[in-house]
Protein backbone atom coordinates (compact mmCIF):
# COMPACT_ATOMS: atom_id res chain seq x y z
CA UNK A 1 0.00 0.00 0.00
CA UNK A 2 1.95 3.00 -1.21
CA UNK A 3 -0.02 6.14 -1.70
CA UNK A 4 2.02 9.19 -2.65
CA UNK A 5 2.66 11.64 0.15
CA UNK A 6 0.52 14.78 -0.11
CA UNK A 7 2.45 17.63 -1.68
CA UNK A 8 1.86 21.35 -1.67
CA UNK A 9 3.63 23.71 -4.03
CA UNK A 10 3.92 27.46 -4.54
CA UNK A 11 2.13 28.30 -1.31
CA UNK A 12 2.45 31.95 -0.16
CA UNK A 13 4.00 31.92 3.30
CA UNK A 14 6.01 33.80 5.91
CA UNK A 15 8.58 32.34 8.29
CA UNK A 16 7.51 33.03 11.87
CA UNK A 17 10.35 31.35 13.67
CA UNK A 18 13.31 29.15 12.95
CA UNK A 19 15.11 26.80 15.29
CA UNK A 20 18.33 24.88 14.55
CA UNK A 21 17.72 21.17 14.24
CA UNK A 22 20.37 18.47 14.09
CA UNK A 23 23.61 19.40 12.30
CA UNK A 24 22.62 21.50 9.38
CA UNK A 25 18.82 21.50 9.39
CA UNK A 26 16.20 23.68 10.99
CA UNK A 27 12.62 23.52 12.19
CA UNK A 28 10.72 26.31 10.50
CA UNK A 29 7.38 27.62 11.70
CA UNK A 30 5.43 28.97 8.76
CA UNK A 31 2.31 31.05 8.44
CA UNK A 32 0.75 30.07 5.11
CA UNK A 33 -2.11 31.53 3.09
CA UNK A 34 -4.29 28.41 2.76
CA UNK A 35 -3.04 26.00 5.43
CA UNK A 36 -2.61 28.27 8.42
CA UNK A 37 0.30 27.87 10.77
CA UNK A 38 2.44 24.76 10.40
CA UNK A 39 5.90 23.44 11.15
CA UNK A 40 8.27 21.97 8.61
CA UNK A 41 11.80 20.64 8.74
CA UNK A 42 14.19 22.34 6.32
CA UNK A 43 16.86 19.74 5.64
CA UNK A 44 20.38 21.04 5.13
CA UNK A 45 19.22 24.65 5.26
CA UNK A 46 22.18 25.78 7.34
CA UNK A 47 24.69 24.71 4.69
CA UNK A 48 26.14 27.54 2.66
CA UNK A 49 24.58 26.57 -0.66
CA UNK A 50 21.22 25.18 0.37
CA UNK A 51 18.35 25.75 -2.07
CA UNK A 52 16.12 26.34 0.95
CA UNK A 53 18.32 29.24 2.04
CA UNK A 54 15.49 31.75 1.63
CA UNK A 55 13.52 29.94 4.32
CA UNK A 56 15.91 31.29 6.96
CA UNK A 57 14.59 34.85 6.85
CA UNK A 58 11.40 35.85 8.56
CA UNK A 59 9.30 38.91 7.65
CA UNK A 60 9.82 38.20 3.94
CA UNK A 61 7.14 37.08 1.51
CA UNK A 62 7.97 33.58 0.28
CA UNK A 63 6.48 30.87 -1.84
CA UNK A 64 7.10 27.49 -0.30
CA UNK A 65 6.43 23.86 -1.01
CA UNK A 66 6.31 20.89 1.34
CA UNK A 67 5.34 17.27 1.55
CA UNK A 68 4.26 14.98 4.33
CA UNK A 69 1.20 13.49 5.90
CA UNK A 70 1.92 14.05 9.59
CA UNK A 71 2.10 17.12 11.81
CA UNK A 72 5.68 17.89 10.82
CA UNK A 73 6.10 18.56 7.10
CA UNK A 74 9.26 18.43 5.02
CA UNK A 75 10.06 21.67 3.27
CA UNK A 76 10.80 21.06 -0.41
CA UNK A 77 11.06 24.59 -1.79
CA UNK A 78 11.31 28.18 -0.63
CA UNK A 79 11.80 31.17 -2.83
CA UNK A 80 11.19 34.88 -2.45
CA UNK A 81 7.83 36.11 -3.73
CA UNK A 82 7.91 39.61 -5.07
CA UNK A 83 10.17 42.45 -4.11
CA UNK A 84 11.57 42.59 -0.60
CA UNK A 85 10.88 45.59 1.54
CA UNK A 86 13.83 46.13 3.86
CA UNK A 87 12.45 45.92 7.37
CA UNK A 88 14.72 47.96 9.61
CA UNK A 89 14.91 49.55 13.01
CA UNK A 90 11.85 49.58 15.19
CA UNK A 91 9.79 47.92 12.44
CA UNK A 92 11.82 44.77 13.14
CA UNK A 93 10.59 44.72 16.72
CA UNK A 94 7.02 45.16 15.50
CA UNK A 95 7.60 42.28 13.09
CA UNK A 96 8.85 40.08 15.91
CA UNK A 97 5.80 41.12 17.92
CA UNK A 98 3.46 40.08 15.09
CA UNK A 99 5.27 36.77 14.77
CA UNK A 100 5.04 36.09 18.47
CA UNK A 101 1.31 36.89 18.44
CA UNK A 102 0.68 34.50 15.55
CA UNK A 103 2.89 31.77 17.07
CA UNK A 104 1.20 32.02 20.43
CA UNK A 105 -2.42 32.54 19.44
CA UNK A 106 -3.13 31.05 16.02
CA UNK A 107 -3.80 27.30 16.31
CA UNK A 108 -1.70 25.17 13.96
CA UNK A 109 -3.19 23.45 10.89
CA UNK A 110 -6.17 25.77 10.94
CA UNK A 111 -6.53 27.74 7.68
CA UNK A 112 -6.70 31.49 8.31
CA UNK A 113 -6.68 33.06 4.84
CA UNK A 114 -8.12 36.38 6.01
CA UNK A 115 -5.70 36.72 8.91
CA UNK A 116 -2.88 35.89 6.50
CA UNK A 117 -3.96 38.79 4.31
CA UNK A 118 -4.04 41.11 7.35
CA UNK A 119 -0.58 39.90 8.34
CA UNK A 120 0.73 40.64 4.88
CA UNK A 121 -0.86 44.08 4.93
CA UNK A 122 0.53 44.83 8.39
CA UNK A 123 4.06 43.96 7.27
CA UNK A 124 3.83 46.09 4.16
CA UNK A 125 2.73 49.10 6.22
CA UNK A 126 5.39 48.54 8.85
CA UNK A 127 8.13 50.57 7.20
CA UNK A 128 6.28 53.84 7.85
CA UNK A 129 6.77 54.99 11.44
CA UNK A 130 3.49 56.94 11.50
CA UNK A 131 1.23 54.06 10.52
CA UNK A 132 3.12 51.41 12.49
CA UNK A 133 1.16 51.67 15.70
CA UNK A 134 -2.34 51.80 14.10
CA UNK A 135 -1.34 48.84 11.92
CA UNK A 136 -0.50 46.77 15.00
CA UNK A 137 -3.79 47.73 16.67
CA UNK A 138 -5.81 46.85 13.58
CA UNK A 139 -4.01 43.51 13.30
CA UNK A 140 -4.70 42.72 16.97
CA UNK A 141 -8.38 43.52 16.43
CA UNK A 142 -8.59 41.31 13.33
CA UNK A 143 -6.72 38.53 15.14
CA UNK A 144 -9.28 38.55 17.96
CA UNK A 145 -12.09 38.57 15.40
CA UNK A 146 -10.68 35.66 13.40
CA UNK A 147 -10.16 33.67 16.59
CA UNK A 148 -13.84 34.22 17.34
CA UNK A 149 -13.11 36.53 20.27
CA UNK A 150 -13.77 39.86 18.65
CA UNK A 151 -16.10 42.42 20.13
CA UNK A 152 -17.87 45.41 18.65
CA UNK A 153 -16.21 48.78 19.25
CA UNK A 154 -19.34 50.80 18.55
CA UNK A 155 -21.86 48.76 20.60
CA UNK A 156 -21.93 48.21 24.33
CA UNK A 157 -23.84 46.36 27.00
CA UNK A 158 -26.37 46.57 28.43
CA UNK A 159 -28.62 46.08 25.45
CA UNK A 160 -26.11 46.53 22.61
CA UNK A 161 -26.61 50.27 22.63
CA UNK A 162 -24.55 52.45 20.33
CA UNK A 163 -21.38 53.71 22.01
CA UNK A 164 -21.74 57.39 22.86
CA UNK A 165 -18.80 59.74 22.45
CA UNK A 166 -19.36 61.38 25.82
CA UNK A 167 -19.62 58.23 27.98
CA UNK A 168 -16.98 55.92 29.43
CA UNK A 169 -16.69 52.18 29.06
CA UNK A 170 -14.82 49.16 30.35
CA UNK A 171 -14.10 45.75 28.87
CA UNK A 172 -15.76 42.63 30.16
CA UNK A 173 -13.95 39.53 28.87
CA UNK A 174 -17.21 37.66 28.29
CA UNK A 175 -19.60 40.36 27.23
CA UNK A 176 -17.49 42.94 25.41
CA UNK A 177 -17.74 46.64 26.15
CA UNK A 178 -19.84 47.76 29.10
CA UNK A 179 -21.06 51.20 29.85
CA UNK A 180 -19.33 52.31 33.08
CA UNK A 181 -18.89 55.90 34.27
CA UNK A 182 -15.53 54.97 35.88
CA UNK A 183 -14.35 52.87 32.90
CA UNK A 184 -10.95 53.57 31.34
CA UNK A 185 -12.12 53.85 27.72
CA UNK A 186 -13.79 57.08 26.55
CA UNK A 187 -16.53 56.57 23.94
CA UNK A 188 -15.03 58.96 21.40
CA UNK A 189 -11.77 56.95 21.35
CA UNK A 190 -13.70 53.71 20.82
CA UNK A 191 -15.66 55.27 17.97
CA UNK A 192 -12.43 56.46 16.38
CA UNK A 193 -11.03 52.93 16.69
CA UNK A 194 -14.18 51.51 15.10
CA UNK A 195 -13.56 53.82 12.15
CA UNK A 196 -9.86 52.82 12.03
CA UNK A 197 -8.93 56.44 12.73
CA UNK A 198 -5.84 56.54 14.95
CA UNK A 199 -4.78 60.12 14.33
CA UNK A 200 -5.36 61.20 17.97
CA UNK A 201 -2.69 60.21 20.51
CA UNK A 202 -5.48 59.53 23.01
CA UNK A 203 -7.05 57.00 20.64
CA UNK A 204 -3.69 55.27 20.26
CA UNK A 205 -3.13 55.06 24.01
CA UNK A 206 -6.65 53.84 24.60
CA UNK A 207 -6.39 51.27 21.79
CA UNK A 208 -3.09 49.95 23.15
CA UNK A 209 -4.60 49.45 26.59
CA UNK A 210 -7.82 47.93 25.27
CA UNK A 211 -6.03 45.43 23.02
CA UNK A 212 -3.64 44.49 25.81
CA UNK A 213 -6.58 43.84 28.07
CA UNK A 214 -8.43 41.84 25.41
CA UNK A 215 -5.38 39.70 24.59
CA UNK A 216 -4.34 39.09 28.20
CA UNK A 217 -6.71 36.17 28.96
CA UNK A 218 -5.49 34.38 25.80
CA UNK A 219 -1.84 34.74 26.79
CA UNK A 220 -2.32 33.35 30.30
CA UNK A 221 0.55 33.86 32.69
CA UNK A 222 3.22 34.01 29.97
CA UNK A 223 3.39 37.61 28.79
CA UNK A 224 4.57 38.45 25.28
CA UNK A 225 8.36 38.67 25.34
CA UNK A 226 8.61 41.01 22.38
CA UNK A 227 6.99 43.78 24.42
CA UNK A 228 10.20 44.01 26.44
CA UNK A 229 12.08 45.12 23.29
CA UNK A 230 10.27 48.41 23.33
CA UNK A 231 11.81 49.29 26.69
CA UNK A 232 15.25 49.92 25.17
CA UNK A 233 14.90 53.64 25.57
CA UNK A 234 13.78 55.42 28.68
CA UNK A 235 10.08 55.93 29.34
CA UNK A 236 8.48 58.97 27.72
CA UNK A 237 10.05 58.64 24.30
CA UNK A 238 8.68 55.26 23.28
CA UNK A 239 7.26 54.77 19.83
CA UNK A 240 4.81 52.18 18.62
CA UNK A 241 5.06 50.00 21.69
CA UNK A 242 2.51 47.19 21.49
Amino acid at each position, binding site marked *: MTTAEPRVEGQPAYV*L*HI*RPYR*DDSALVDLFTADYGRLRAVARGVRKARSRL*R*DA*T*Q*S*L*RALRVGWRGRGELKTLTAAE*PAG*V*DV*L*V*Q*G*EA*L*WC*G*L*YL*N*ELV*MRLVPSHDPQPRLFAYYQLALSEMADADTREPVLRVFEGRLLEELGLGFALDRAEPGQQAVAAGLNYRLDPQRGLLSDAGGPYPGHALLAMAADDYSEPLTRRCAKRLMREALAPLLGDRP*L*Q*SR*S*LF*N*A*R*GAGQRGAQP
Partner: protein
Amino acid sequence: MSFSPLIDQLIASLRCLPGVGARSAQRMAFHLLERDREGALKLSQALAQAVERVGHCQRCRTLTELSLCKLCDNPERDASQLCVVETPADVLAIEQAGSFQGRYFVLHGHLSPIDGLGPEEIGLGELEALVQEMGVKELIVATNPTVEGEATAHYIAEQLRGLDDSIAVSRIAHGVPLGGELEYVDGGTLAHAFAGRKRL
Protein backbone atom coordinates in the same frame (compact mmCIF):
# COMPACT_ATOMS: atom_id res chain seq x y z
CA MET B 1 23.00 -5.32 17.89
CA SER B 2 24.06 -4.72 21.44
CA PHE B 3 27.54 -5.01 22.97
CA SER B 4 28.48 -5.12 26.63
CA PRO B 5 26.92 -2.34 28.75
CA LEU B 6 30.10 -0.24 28.96
CA ILE B 7 30.65 -0.32 25.20
CA ASP B 8 27.01 0.53 24.59
CA GLN B 9 27.33 3.40 26.99
CA LEU B 10 30.41 4.71 25.19
CA ILE B 11 28.69 4.49 21.80
CA ALA B 12 25.60 6.24 23.10
CA SER B 13 27.74 8.99 24.67
CA LEU B 14 29.68 9.63 21.47
CA ARG B 15 26.42 10.27 19.67
CA CYS B 16 26.02 13.57 21.48
CA LEU B 17 28.64 15.00 19.11
CA PRO B 18 27.32 16.91 16.11
CA GLY B 19 27.33 14.86 12.91
CA VAL B 20 27.87 11.56 14.73
CA GLY B 21 25.22 8.93 14.12
CA ALA B 22 24.97 5.36 15.34
CA ARG B 23 27.39 4.04 12.77
CA SER B 24 30.23 6.54 13.26
CA ALA B 25 29.83 6.37 17.03
CA GLN B 26 30.38 2.64 16.83
CA ARG B 27 33.45 3.11 14.64
CA MET B 28 34.90 5.71 17.02
CA ALA B 29 34.28 3.53 20.05
CA PHE B 30 36.06 0.53 18.52
CA HIS B 31 38.91 2.69 17.28
CA LEU B 32 39.50 4.05 20.75
CA LEU B 33 39.26 0.67 22.46
CA GLU B 34 41.21 -1.38 19.92
CA ARG B 35 43.83 0.96 18.56
CA ASP B 36 44.27 4.03 20.73
CA ARG B 37 43.62 3.52 24.40
CA GLU B 38 46.17 6.16 25.30
CA GLY B 39 44.41 8.70 23.09
CA ALA B 40 41.11 7.69 24.62
CA LEU B 41 42.40 8.33 28.11
CA LYS B 42 43.74 11.73 27.09
CA LEU B 43 40.40 12.56 25.48
CA SER B 44 38.46 11.61 28.56
CA GLN B 45 40.72 13.67 30.80
CA ALA B 46 40.65 16.67 28.49
CA LEU B 47 36.86 16.46 28.32
CA ALA B 48 36.47 16.18 32.07
CA GLN B 49 38.82 19.09 32.75
CA ALA B 50 37.35 21.35 30.11
CA VAL B 51 33.77 20.73 31.17
CA GLU B 52 34.63 21.23 34.80
CA ARG B 53 36.78 24.34 34.46
CA VAL B 54 35.83 26.27 31.34
CA GLY B 55 33.42 29.05 32.14
CA HIS B 56 32.83 32.53 30.82
CA CYS B 57 35.26 35.45 30.79
CA GLN B 58 34.14 37.96 33.40
CA ARG B 59 34.43 40.80 30.96
CA CYS B 60 33.51 39.62 27.47
CA ARG B 61 31.65 36.40 28.36
CA THR B 62 33.53 34.26 25.84
CA LEU B 63 34.49 30.71 26.81
CA THR B 64 37.63 30.44 28.94
CA GLU B 65 38.88 28.80 32.14
CA LEU B 66 40.62 32.03 33.15
CA SER B 67 38.77 34.79 34.93
CA LEU B 68 39.78 37.13 32.10
CA CYS B 69 40.23 35.67 28.62
CA LYS B 70 43.46 36.20 26.67
CA LEU B 71 41.94 38.90 24.51
CA CYS B 72 40.61 40.90 27.44
CA ASP B 73 43.88 40.48 29.31
CA ASN B 74 46.01 41.68 26.40
CA PRO B 75 47.03 45.34 26.97
CA GLU B 76 47.87 45.70 23.25
CA ARG B 77 44.20 45.41 22.31
CA ASP B 78 42.40 48.66 21.68
CA ALA B 79 39.96 49.16 24.57
CA SER B 80 38.19 52.01 22.80
CA GLN B 81 36.57 49.63 20.29
CA LEU B 82 34.18 46.93 21.41
CA CYS B 83 32.70 44.38 19.01
CA VAL B 84 29.45 42.62 19.96
CA VAL B 85 28.99 39.10 18.56
CA GLU B 86 26.50 36.27 19.06
CA THR B 87 28.82 33.34 19.78
CA PRO B 88 32.43 32.50 20.79
CA ALA B 89 32.81 30.99 17.29
CA ASP B 90 32.15 34.47 15.86
CA VAL B 91 35.05 35.85 17.95
CA LEU B 92 37.29 33.22 16.40
CA ALA B 93 36.09 33.99 12.87
CA ILE B 94 36.82 37.71 13.28
CA GLU B 95 40.19 37.01 14.93
CA GLN B 96 41.17 34.76 12.03
CA ALA B 97 40.27 37.51 9.58
CA GLY B 98 42.72 39.62 11.58
CA SER B 99 41.36 43.05 10.76
CA PHE B 100 39.97 44.00 14.16
CA GLN B 101 42.23 45.03 17.04
CA GLY B 102 39.66 45.93 19.67
CA ARG B 103 37.85 43.87 22.26
CA TYR B 104 34.72 41.71 22.17
CA PHE B 105 31.48 41.05 23.96
CA VAL B 106 29.69 37.72 23.44
CA LEU B 107 25.89 37.64 23.74
CA HIS B 108 25.52 33.84 23.52
CA GLY B 109 22.47 34.24 21.31
CA HIS B 110 20.22 36.98 20.00
CA LEU B 111 16.91 38.52 21.00
CA SER B 112 14.27 35.92 20.24
CA PRO B 113 10.92 36.58 21.92
CA ILE B 114 9.41 33.26 20.81
CA ASP B 115 12.28 31.39 22.51
CA GLY B 116 11.92 33.55 25.61
CA LEU B 117 15.25 35.31 25.05
CA GLY B 118 14.89 38.94 26.05
CA PRO B 119 17.48 41.69 26.67
CA GLU B 120 18.43 40.34 30.11
CA GLU B 121 18.95 36.77 28.90
CA ILE B 122 21.59 37.84 26.38
CA GLY B 123 23.47 40.03 28.86
CA LEU B 124 22.61 43.49 27.54
CA GLY B 125 22.66 44.87 31.09
CA GLU B 126 26.25 43.65 31.46
CA LEU B 127 27.12 45.13 28.09
CA GLU B 128 25.86 48.54 29.18
CA ALA B 129 27.95 48.37 32.37
CA LEU B 130 31.03 47.24 30.45
CA VAL B 131 30.75 50.05 27.91
CA GLN B 132 30.72 52.61 30.71
CA GLU B 133 33.51 50.95 32.67
CA MET B 134 35.87 50.53 29.70
CA GLY B 135 35.39 54.00 28.24
CA VAL B 136 34.45 52.59 24.84
CA LYS B 137 34.46 55.10 21.97
CA GLU B 138 32.98 52.87 19.30
CA LEU B 139 30.68 49.89 19.66
CA ILE B 140 30.60 47.66 16.57
CA VAL B 141 27.55 45.40 16.43
CA ALA B 142 28.40 42.22 14.54
CA THR B 143 25.31 40.11 15.18
CA ASN B 144 24.15 37.84 12.34
CA PRO B 145 22.28 39.38 9.40
CA THR B 146 19.01 37.68 10.36
CA VAL B 147 15.82 39.39 11.49
CA GLU B 148 16.63 38.55 15.11
CA GLY B 149 20.25 39.67 14.70
CA GLU B 150 19.13 42.99 13.22
CA ALA B 151 16.52 43.46 15.94
CA THR B 152 19.25 42.84 18.53
CA ALA B 153 21.54 45.37 16.84
CA HIS B 154 18.78 47.98 16.82
CA TYR B 155 18.04 47.30 20.48
CA ILE B 156 21.69 47.81 21.46
CA ALA B 157 21.85 51.05 19.47
CA GLU B 158 18.73 52.38 21.16
CA GLN B 159 19.92 51.29 24.58
CA LEU B 160 23.22 53.16 24.25
CA ARG B 161 21.70 56.20 22.61
CA GLY B 162 20.10 57.21 25.87
CA LEU B 163 23.27 56.48 27.80
CA ASP B 164 26.11 58.44 26.26
CA ASP B 165 25.98 60.30 22.98
CA SER B 166 29.75 60.32 22.59
CA ILE B 167 29.78 56.57 21.93
CA ALA B 168 29.50 55.77 18.23
CA VAL B 169 27.43 52.65 17.56
CA SER B 170 28.07 51.04 14.19
CA ARG B 171 26.81 47.97 12.39
CA ILE B 172 29.00 45.76 10.19
CA ALA B 173 28.15 46.10 6.50
CA HIS B 174 26.19 43.47 4.58
CA GLY B 175 26.71 42.89 0.92
CA VAL B 176 27.98 40.91 -1.97
CA PRO B 177 30.63 38.31 -1.07
CA LEU B 178 34.12 38.82 -2.46
CA GLY B 179 34.76 36.97 -5.70
CA GLY B 180 31.03 36.43 -6.14
CA GLU B 181 28.84 37.20 -9.10
CA LEU B 182 25.85 39.49 -8.74
CA GLU B 183 23.69 37.15 -10.76
CA TYR B 184 23.86 34.52 -8.01
CA VAL B 185 23.34 36.82 -5.04
CA ASP B 186 19.89 36.68 -3.40
CA GLY B 187 17.53 39.65 -3.53
CA GLY B 188 17.72 40.48 0.18
CA THR B 189 21.52 40.71 0.13
CA LEU B 190 21.44 42.84 -3.01
CA ALA B 191 18.89 45.18 -1.44
CA HIS B 192 21.21 45.60 1.57
CA ALA B 193 24.21 46.06 -0.69
CA PHE B 194 22.43 48.91 -2.48
CA ALA B 195 21.11 50.49 0.71
CA GLY B 196 24.65 50.45 2.14
CA ARG B 197 26.49 51.58 -1.00
CA LYS B 198 29.63 53.69 -0.68
CA ARG B 199 30.81 56.73 -2.53
CA LEU B 200 33.87 56.00 -4.68
